[in-house]
């Protein structure tokens, strides 16, 4: 087996697993810990998470593949996700998407050759009053976007 948690992450896991009466319930939080360390969930990580919780590796894959935020393939250093659902679409989400495609030279679903950016779309991220918006690495929201603002953000991402 090629993967195991760092001592620090293992400590976090040991705490979180006590929060549930059934070990299996800790599966999604455990997968999050692995993705936090690796940036994605390779088969070794899925197998390791499953083993920690006395589950079959296939169980971890079955669950991870259901949720859009788990990366089952490597992504760029910055995963950019643009919300394309109605409220954002009405105020220019597709213009932002066009701009990102042009600027990065890739299409939705692709990663730049230098491995820096991956571009994706997302469904409603609850920024309906502050659209258009994009989320970076499943964490930070950037809202009320304009093409100029997108350029500034891209430049600020090292």
């Amino acid at each position, binding site marked *: 087996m090629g993967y195991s948690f760092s001592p620090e992450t293992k400590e976090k896991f040991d705490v979180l697993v006590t929060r549930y009466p059934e070990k299996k319930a800790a599966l999604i939080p455990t997968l999050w810990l692995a993705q936090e360390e690796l940036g994605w969930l390779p088969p070794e990580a899925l197998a390791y998470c499953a083993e920690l919780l006395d589950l079959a590796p296939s169980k971890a894959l079955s669950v991870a593949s259901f*949720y859009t935020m788990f990366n089952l393939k490597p992504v760029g250093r910055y995963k950019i996700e643009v919300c394309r659902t109605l409220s954002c679409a*009405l105020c220019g989400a597709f*213009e932002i998407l066009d701009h990102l495609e042009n600027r990065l030279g890739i299409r939705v679903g692709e990663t730049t050759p230098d491995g820096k950016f991956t571009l994706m779309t997302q469904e409603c991220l609850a920024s309906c009053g502050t659209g258009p918006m994009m989320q970076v690495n499943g964490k930070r929201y950037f809202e009320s976007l304009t093409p100029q603002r997108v350029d500034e953000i891209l430049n600020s991402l090292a």
Partner: protein
Amino acid sequence: MSFPKILSANWGVPDNHHINVAMSRGQYDVAREVLGGARTPDDITAEVKKSGLRGRGGAGFPAGMKWGFLPKNDPRPRYLVINADESEPGTYKDRRILENDPHMLIEGCILASYAIQAHACYIYVRGEFWHQQSILRQAVQEAYHKGFLGKNCFGSGYHLDITVHSGAGAYICGEETALLTSLEGERGYPRLKPPFPATHGLFQCPTVVNNVETIANVPWIVRHGGDAYSQIGKYVVGPDGRPQVDSRGTRLMCASGAINKPGVHEIPLGIGLMEYIDEYCGGVKGELKAAIPGGSSCPILTADEVRSVEMTYESMAKHGTMFGSGGLIVLEQQTSLVWVLHNLLRFYSHESCGQCTPCREGTDWLYKILGRMLQGKGTEDDLREVLDIADNMEGRTICALAAAATMPTRSYIQKFREEFVSYFVKGGRPVDRRGRYLHPVAPVGAAV
């Protein structure tokens, strides 16, 4: 209309998410008193029943009654689960509570857990709310350090653990049984009801699932009394002695689309929808065409209906729609409703969990047919086909996602049929990247 702000009173107070700031204005006082023995659990449930508070997640089910469904004298553990999986398109209100007043929610969790005698509470927050989760986790930690949570809450001997649980990206997990399945470490598949969560919920134990906003109301209700809460909003008793309108309290509305000032606003229930748009949202940007009143799963309202509907559960129902999650999306004349429906059907097709065939296939067929119409390749037969597919989806699935796609679909076609028909020309009707018609009038030759 003058009314006390219950949920949003402290938004904008600096550092309001820190426990000392929250406590300086009395947060946790009520919970301390109640757990100290001032009120029994049944008292708290009775107070919430009296308030008339209805669930703010979408279905509008009376909150106190839901709590009352848990079986008495059952040896199994009980659970309180908070639905913070806010993902209904157009909705962004719970997010504001998590960001601005997490301690109000935590005190609500303590009171509600005590009322149903739960010793474990899970707050299921959508995975994308990474920032909101970190605020909430810190707030929960603070409450533990103060001794308000844990083995001996407020020194009362009452034991309560609150755990913030992150989702990982799935709209369906906002459906309460899917949320429970997901919380158990599974794919987020909804479950058949019955059995209901009240008897077989989380880990097959008695469980109450409530929305963030619903629970955030509880500290105010317990402090000021259910009667005070029920004075706000609209409550009308009919000649038979039964309520004709039962829409009490305030609620958070989230507005987006063609309005001048998008935002989250706390309103007293019962005001007119147009009054809300004009007074809180700065009016319509452009000429009003239609509006989706409570999130994308609600049937659409025409401009005339927007002008006549009141913000009550009952008036929404009379107009053939729902109050839903309070996510208002306003649409103006230039916007193509075929484009709008196509956008939403892609959403439902993407978010169907795939468990039931009518929904898994049906949402995708609807999305594809709408795509064909958008390109000007649609026919009258397609409209019939859409309605026929909708008939074969509704009521034939485990959860309501299929209906959340078909009810709006049917309403768009019924109320704006001519616009759909105007697409049945070669090339359809071109729109820009925001769904606005390039040629406001239907092209010559359109069969209307």
